[in-house]
């Protein structure tokens, strides 16, 4: 199978959906003539022109709200937040308008938008640019949230999100954009990954490592170490989609391994892992041989210093240590 960079897999998804539906329009800061701050949209303005790929001013509340309004009349905006961290200046539009307007209209309206961009720490840009709001937005009924870890998932989820008739927020990762991974050839037909389906990235029998986004890669690395150095067989479950959530896959894995470590780049208080932990104790309590443990970002605003930031985030060593603490 061919290999693509994560950013190119995303670009391929956007390109295919621009071709698939003439109502799809890309909007965001520097997405067109500049080719994207992180080059996800590179070449798309050249190919599709200024009607389909639109540069916006630095005005997140304005252009996100504009996209929500346009979607009510059938346009399907795919809007880039240069960083998901900038959600805070567009919060009313993202939550009250994108998330609640259908409900307040008694179901007479739907909002088929995608908001996408990177949401991660680890790039030494300090607290304002390092937020991971996937748990925050998944807490609002009416919104959907995905966080793909691999190029193939990035492409398949992006395409499904654009075709979805509800608002979908896709949280990418600047640390993943340059990663290579296998992606099915275009000749094999439309490659769609449904929202709400988790993926077992590595099978195992002793413990479940449950994660999303870049944390999945830390789990895979940790699973290697656990296997080689400690003879522990760890299963790695990639949630891919936070809401809708594949509860069945989570429970199946825990029922099989009887132990779980949740790895989540969010902060521990009300992170995605908080919700997963609650669901596991509700649905698989009798199958647990140990308390559910977590590896989250250390509970402080994101530190700038490149000497230490990686230790604030989940990493393979922290995952291994947490697993061994449960033995």
């Amino acid at each position: 199978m061919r290999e693509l960079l994560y950013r190119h897999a995303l670009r391929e998804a956007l390109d295919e959906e621009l071709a698939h539906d003439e109502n799809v329009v890309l909007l965001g800061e520097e997405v067109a003539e500049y080719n994207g701050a992180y080059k996800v949209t590179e070449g798309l303005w050249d190919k599709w022109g200024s009607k389909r790929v639109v540069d916006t001013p630095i005005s997140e509340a304005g252009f996100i709200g504009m996209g929500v309004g346009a979607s009510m009349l059938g346009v399907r905006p795919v809007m880039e937040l240069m960083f998901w961290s900038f959600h805070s200046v567009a919060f009313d539009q993202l939550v009250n308008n994108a998330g609640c307007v259908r409900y307040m209209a008694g179901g007479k309206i739907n909002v088929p938008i995608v908001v996408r961009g990177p949401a991660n720490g680890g790039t030494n840009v300090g607290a304002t640019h390092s937020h991971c709001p996937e748990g925050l937005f998944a807490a609002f009924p009416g919104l959907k949230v995905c966080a793909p870890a691999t190029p193939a998932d990035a492409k398949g989820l992006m395409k499904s999100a654009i075709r979805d008739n509800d608002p979908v927020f896709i949280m990418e990762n600047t640390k993943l954009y340059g990663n290579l991974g296998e992606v099915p050839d275009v000749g094999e037909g439309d490659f769609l990954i449904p929202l709400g389906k988790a993926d077992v990235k590595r099978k195992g029998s002793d413990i479940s490592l449950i994660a999303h986004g870049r944390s999945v890669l830390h789990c895979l690395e940790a699973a290697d170490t656990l296997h080689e150095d400690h003879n522990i067989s760890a299963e790695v479950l990639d949630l891919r989609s936070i809401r809708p959530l594949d509860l069945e896959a989570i429970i199946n894995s825990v029922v099989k391994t009887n132990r779980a470590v949740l790895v989540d780049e969010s902060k521990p208080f009300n992170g995605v892992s908080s919700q997963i932990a609650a669901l596991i104790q509700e649905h698989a309590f009798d199958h647990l041989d140990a308390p559910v443990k977590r590896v989250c970002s250390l509970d402080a605003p994101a530190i700038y210093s490149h000497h230490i930031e990686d230790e604030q985030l989940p990493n393979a060593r922290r995952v291994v240590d947490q697993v061994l603490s449960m033995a």
Partner: protein
Amino acid sequence: MQDPSAEPPFAAMDFSSSPVNRSLSPQDKIDFYRTMVRIRRFEHLALGQYQKDKMGGFLHLYIGQESVAVGAVSLMGENDHVITAYRDHGHALAVGMSMDECMAELFGKVTGCSKGKGGSMHFFAPDKNFWGGHGIVAGQTPLGLGLGYALKYQGLPGCALCFLGDGAINQGVFHESLNLAALFEIPIVYIIENNGYSMGTSQTRSSAYRDCLAQRAEAYNMAWDLVNGEDLYEVRAKTHIAMERARKEHRPSLLEIQTYRYYGHSVADANADKYRTPDEIERYKTYHDPIRLWERRLIDEGHLTAEEAKAMEKEATKETAKAIKFAEGSPAPTVDDILHDVYWEVDEDTEAGNTGRHFFND
């Protein structure tokens, strides 16, 4: 009784002969009167029901401002769309929503326009090009922009009307919207319904400006105008020009329509008579009431008699009473209803809607 000739109306010019008004039939003019009267009766009687605890939450009454919604909405064609803030009952009735569905929404009943899920501030009728009803001050201003964006994107010859209050003009997102509207050449007309008070704070205590609020459009190289809202002819004449500018040239406008509300910011506004004098309210009611002025106008033009006006008021009262009965007799939503209308894919029972957990109640 004060002498009605003591203070003339603000109107200095006669807009009855502007093209968009000259083409009106007597019946059109009478219909405007009827709609304004219906809005006022609806609001008065809704207030009575609120005071009887028939509804929860807030109730922002439109009484005093009727000519603004009725005048502007009367200019809408099939490709024109409208959106407003939380003082939305007047716009709802003006676009043709029924009193039944509006009153039932206030009563929190399943027969309400939003099935009892929106309430007073969140009326919607997409089938009548009415996109709400929005509770956060200025939150609707970029949504209106999006309606205009979609019209232009799809090549439709229409425009968006986006109403806001004078209190909304100091929100950041409104300025972002003005910038985007001018920058992207969006067919939109922003209408500030300036009733003089952002809740309990007067215009001079809340906004910095030179001559008027709409003048802020200058900063965005956008057309603007100041409109005397007590005169339905003027509202129509000036709004029409802005709508044509939007439809034909894809250029936005900012209108400031001066108007007045007789009641508080909402009926929960305990200080409604404290931050302004009773004299001020009385003066507006006596000299500047848009319905009375329109009535006098139609009588002068020979299209209406005082008796016919009275009869229309009675009819509106009857219609509202019937709507109250309808609302009263309608069922409330059930616990089961709470979880519908959250996700389109779930409601439509699609494959996507059936994949993964969407709700986390158990």
